[in-house]
């Protein structure tokens, strides 16, 4: 890329906080007028507040402020975003159009259920398609995000053990050392203690260690498949059998479902339940870190415990929201889950359909293996096996020989116009770079990215300072995170309060 240089590029002025643009009396919206009689406010509602320091800016300044901020933010629509484990695929525009239809967007969650038959039909449609894709007996769309889905699965497992009189004894959840942090955190949220299971030299679950850990105290094993190493667990059926024989349940972390869509079904592998991230696999936009959308799949023995409402067909074939579930764990979210995200997922699923669904896994796996093959000479893969939808590479030799860390390579990528991959995860791979290209990228984009990675690896040897000082073209250079913690500044404070010592 010819615009690169090692010196700092001339930058646009630093963006100001919206509060500094405020001037008393300005307003940025054409506010609804009121046609009913005035009332005495303090008589009506009691003690009034003295001040309210919110911005007072014009509509144009509102738009400019946020437009300018968007221009210093990187999204999939800006460029290639190979953030491993996050499945940053294209989010089709038609999904946005359908989610904005008034017949979906303008529904109140507590309006009579008889007035939302189309919404219920859509929810059931998503459930039925996900059921077929995952191979589970049932699906609920109640969880609001991936971690929320994990937690809901563990709640189902907890209720299941309680129903069998084993709630008091089964208190341990097994989690591989390669797992996402949400797994142990979700287990803790359900009152479980966590035991870590090591990964063997090939990147598979250590079966001997698993065997030793399995006893009558184990409630569940939480397994990510394909693992966070980007590898399919070839012993998956055996692992599920081992856990079941010990009386435990097996949860599948579905973060990596993109590798399996249309090609293999976790419900067939022996799992009892799994969570899906519709914001990863089924293209609902990540939105800067939410809304997530966390459907879960489960086998029939867990069905009695499903959270309410359960969307299903009634005796007349009509779609209903069922609340009369005596063994239900209750509500995990206030209403029907992330409904407008389900509209997007439904749109996406119907666009692919039966004929093309497998394209998702086939081309995402092809793209990941292509990147892996192109980079293997400069950044060796952590394991010598075909990867699934993401490849895990290690920059260890650059750290040892040139003092360059994976993070330095990532920061330099920003200068080349790409979003960095995931760094330092999974924790068990030293100087880890986790690259997930997704199926929606062209060969040309992948080639440009690989060319940049190769160039950076050469720079690491010949001109390491370029990496240490990267990024040099972004809005800001590397930020002082120690200062951020030690002099915690998490809100703007109005001058009036500052002088009052608040």
């Amino acid at each position, binding site marked *: 890329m010819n615009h690169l240089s090692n010196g700092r590029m001339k930058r646009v002025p630093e963006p100001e906080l919206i509060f500094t643009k405020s001037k008393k*009396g300005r307003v940025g919206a054409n506010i609804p007028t009121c046609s009913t009689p005035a009332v005495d406010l303090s008589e009506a509602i009691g003690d*009034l507040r003295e001040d309210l320091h919110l911005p007072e800016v014009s509509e144009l300044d509102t738009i400019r402020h946020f437009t300018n901020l968007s221009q210093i933010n990187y999204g999939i629509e800006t460029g290639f975003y190979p953030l491993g484990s996050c499945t940053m695929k294209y989010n089709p525009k038609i999904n946005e159009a359908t989610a904005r239809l008034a017949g979906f967007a303008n529904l109140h969650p507590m309006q009579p259920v008889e007035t939302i038959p189309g919404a219920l039909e859509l929810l059931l449609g998503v459930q039925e398609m996900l059921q077929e894709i995952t191979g589970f007996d049932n699906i609920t769309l109640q969880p609001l995000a991936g971690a929320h889905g994990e937690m809901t699965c563990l709640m189902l497992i907890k209720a299941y053990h309680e129903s069998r009189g084993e709630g008091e004894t089964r208190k341990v959840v097994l989690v591989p050392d390669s797992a996402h942090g949400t797994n142990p955190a979700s287990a*803790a949220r359900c009152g479980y203690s966590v035991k870590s299971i090591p990964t063997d030299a090939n990147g598979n679950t250590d079966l001997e260690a698993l065997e030793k850990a399995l006893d009558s105290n184990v409630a569940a094993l939480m397994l990510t498949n394909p693992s966070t190493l980007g590898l399919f667990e070839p012993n998956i059926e055996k692992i599920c059998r081992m856990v079941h024989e010990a009386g435990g349940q097996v949860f599948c972390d579905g973060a990596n479902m993109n590798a399996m869509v249309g090609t293999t079904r976790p419900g067939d592998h022996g799992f009892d339940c799994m969570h899906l991230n519709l914001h990863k696999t089924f293209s609902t936009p990540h939105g*800067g870190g939410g809304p997530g959308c966390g459907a879960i799949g489960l086998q029939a023995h867990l069905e009695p415990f499903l959270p309410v409402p359960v969307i299903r067909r009634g005796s007349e074939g009509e779609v209903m929201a069922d609340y009369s579930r005596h063994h239900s764990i209750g*509500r995990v979210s206030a209403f029907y889950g992330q*409904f407008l995200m389900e509209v997007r997922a439904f749109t996406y699923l119907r666009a692919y359909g039966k004929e093309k669904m497998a394209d998702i896994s086939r081309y995402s796996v092809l793209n990941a*293996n292509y990147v892996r093959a192109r980079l293997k000479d400069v950044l060796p893969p952590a394991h010598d096996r*075909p990867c699934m939808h993401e490849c895990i590479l290690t920059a260890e030799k650059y750290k040892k020989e040139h003092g360059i860390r994976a993070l330095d390579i990532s920061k330099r990528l920003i200068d080349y116009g790409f*979003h960095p991959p995931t760094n330092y995860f999974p924790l068990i791979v030293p100087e880890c770079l986790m690259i997930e290209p997704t199926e929606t990228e062209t060969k040309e984009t992948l080639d440009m990215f690989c060319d940049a990675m190769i160039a950076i690896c050469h720079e690491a040897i010949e001109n390491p300072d370029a990496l240490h000082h990267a990024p040099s073209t972004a809005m800001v250079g590397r930020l002082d995170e120690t200062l951020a913690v030690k002099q915690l500044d998490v809100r703007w404070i109005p001058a009036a309060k500052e002088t009052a010592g608040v």
Partner: protein
Amino acid sequence: MPYVPHTPEDVEAMLATIGASSIDELFREIPENLRVAPGALNLPSALDEHKLFGELKRLAAKNTALDEVTCFLGAGIYDRFIPASVSAIISRGEFLTSYTPYQPEASQGYLQTIYEFQSMIAEIFGTDIANASMYDGSTSMAEAAIMSTGLKNRDKVAVSEAVHPHYRQVLDTYCWSMGIEVVVLKTEDGVTKNLSAAEGCASIILQSPNFFGQIEDLSAHRAACDTDGSMMIVVADPFACALMKAPGAYGADIVVGEGQPMGVAMGLGGPMVGLFGCKKELVRHIPGRIVGRTKEMDGGREGFVMTLRTREQDIRREKATSNICTNEALMALANTVYMTAMGKNGLQSVAESSIRNARYALSKLEEAGAKRVYGGKFFAEFVIELPVSAKAVRDALLERGILAGLPLGDYYGGRENQLLVAVTEIRTKDEIDRFASELASVLSSATSQVEVKA
């Protein structure tokens, strides 16, 4: 498929680089008995974009959207004005299609909006600080309750029966899984009384204005918490806070709420956005993300980063303050644009208009034969008693294009004739007058007919 760009030549070249003969070969580690042939799943056929949009329009048209009726239904989700600027900004791909800002240099835009969001929510709630948002109001409240049990080392929490019933159900689920007991506090005349029943609880949770629209006595709430050494948690409405003395000013330890009414589509209740503010000394214990302002390592520029990350699941794993991973960034951005566009004047105007409209509506509905159930101060929502089943009245009014409110019978036993009515700033005098006259007409035909639908 426009989303998958591979040509046959691309595939051939890529496989050659990889050293594989086919895409199938890349899946060889999946045991053969677990593989499905491409196209073999029993799914509906793919639709082209035109037919797809048609199918979605067909489903959408089967629902009664709230622009087809006049909405007096609230109960925590409100039909409020949304400036066009909100949708314009949250539709921008740079925001919409970005991920959690793990790489701050590539995400300064979003990080700054979150910092601004935290500042505005803390200001509205009257708390020292606020986090980057939670999934929704209900989970925000449950997280606050769980946080209190850890801080106070007590294994029960108290919640008023006048807190949104769905929030309480979510709290019950969360607490069941953690082995935490939930004590329910009773109300008298629509507000929570007998706070001493919460003795030994880690926290007392009140909502104000509460589910019935009534304003709770937050001074008494604070005093009860002080007496027993428990934490004061308030579920608040940002619009009520824009005019009233904020919960933080009453000394609330944690203030939570639902951000939907500030620029987020109702969307059948999802996605929403949970608000979470608290005292600054609690900052290391709070769930969710926090953005902080800092400086460059080797330069003078200011910038923003996610901070206090060691609380979070990816670092602290099973000892994390919560399992939450994301915040609800896009909806928080909608809130931020809304609070900016509307500003101080806009938020206060919305609150005041709602208060005026609600009082006007109450007087007209009383004239039409409804009776207000509670005395005391209320915000912009109120409960009325009808001479007949509230559900029957609601259904009859819906046929006349009015969504009258929420019948309380499903939530509170013995209240089958009670209706919870919300009046927002966008309801007009004419709409309220029509509500009242249609109610009068429904009631007169109901009382004249013996066989009213129960």
